[in-house]
């Protein structure tokens, strides 16, 4: 028999609190002996309650996992008292490389270099080190080049639940680019 609803919430809170890191929803479901679907429903309820004013922590979803974290509005109080977590200083080079990987994944080193116009070995190695990207396979092409993609750490770091939530190049801008392009089919050759 399933454990009661309240108990299930308590168990998941205890597990998430203890683990610290993200826990797959499937594992939580197993622990509370519920289906993944029901577990998600319970988690949604929990999140709703965490969002109330007297709570300092909340739940975040990362693909098929969840994790406990402090609410962003608590930050100013936390930096006063708690040791701030190690912050990655991402240089422009790293940011550019990372954004190409984020939006074009899975992507090869060569493709990144083609877009940026410069080599990116160093940047890729740093991003791998920070665990923001990972090798996701090899391309079925000569030399079988490695393909890179982003990690869960990336999602956490950038505050998005899944890749679908990445900020989009807004429609207005894309449209503008397109119109410009069309208007310029015949570029004026003004040397």
């Amino acid at each position, binding site marked *: 028999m399933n454990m009661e609803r309240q108990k299930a919430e308590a168990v998941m809170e205890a597990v998430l*609190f*203890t*683990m*610290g*890191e993200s826990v797959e929803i499937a594992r939580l479901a197993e622990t509370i002996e519920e289906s993944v679907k029901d577990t998600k429903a319970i988690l949604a309820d929990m999140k709703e309650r965490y969002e109330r004013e007297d709570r300092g922590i909340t739940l*975040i979803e990362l693909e098929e996992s969840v*994790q*406990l*974290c*402090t*609410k*962003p*509005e*608590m*930050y100013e109080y*936390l930096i006063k008292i*708690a040791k*701030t*977590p190690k*912050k990655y200083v*991402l240089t*422009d*080079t790293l*940011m*550019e490389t*990372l*954004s*190409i990987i*984020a*939006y074009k994944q899975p992507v090869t080193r060569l493709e990144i270099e083609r*877009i*940026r*116009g*410069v*080599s990116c070995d160093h940047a890729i190695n740093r991003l791998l080190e920070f665990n923001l990207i990972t090798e996701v396979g090899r391309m079925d092409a*000569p*030399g*079988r080049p490695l393909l890179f993609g982003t990690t869960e750490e990336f999602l*956490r*770091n*950038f*505050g*998005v639940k899944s890749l679908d939530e*990445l*900020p989009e*190049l807004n429609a207005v801008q894309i449209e503008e*680019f397109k119109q*410009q*392009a069309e*208007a*310029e*089919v*015949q*570029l*004026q*050759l*003004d*040397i």
Partner: protein
Amino acid sequence: MAIPVKLEAFEGPLDLLLHLIEKNKIDIYDIPIVEITEQYLDYIRQMDTEDMNVMSEFLVMAATLIDIKCKMLLPKEVNEEGEEEDPRAELVQKLLEYKMYKYMSFELRDKQMDAGRSLYREQHLPKEVEEYRPPVDYEALLADVSLSKLQEVFRFMMKRQEDKIDPVRSTFGRIEKDEVDMDRKVVYVEAFIRSHRRFSFRSLLEKQHSKMEIIVTFLVILEMMKLGQIDIEQQDICDDIIITSKVMAAG
């Protein structure tokens, strides 16, 4: 007027080009190639870099600009559909693509700043729980893995390594693996010293056939100097090095 700019300020040749376009307030689709090329070359002239890899990337872009500049002076090329082809089109495409990702990288940085305001907690297992180490389920882990697969993967990789020879350069002919034996080189250099007594380092290097041989020869010379078998003089940095045999002089 010299503009004090460091190469490091730019992410690469495309970044520099974008900077120039933005500085001149030019429509990206309508780049006045002549002006931009000149400004670009100005920047490159001021660049103070010893990193050939970085420099060459900028030079390639400069060459591309000059190539476009030349093409624009020539009669316009017409494609299959009879449309005039703008030599700048490809560059514009590239710039736009780069610009888009650069823009997105700023967006992402904002996201990151916001997300950085949530803190997490380190794993903290109560003692009673800590004693349990999650076992690795080898059956699941190694389900599709067999010895022959392991061997196959290894063979594949060794083959891939063999194939890694640059497809262009490999057509130049066989690439031989350099195998230079330090001991044999010592014998060789000793013989050389016996027959020359006093000679220039360069004359010794001229007889070496590969980079590896040169390196090993250099190491042998260093070793002999350390052991006091030879004397070394050099007038000025980059001058030829004169080597004199001490052993032979004594004997």
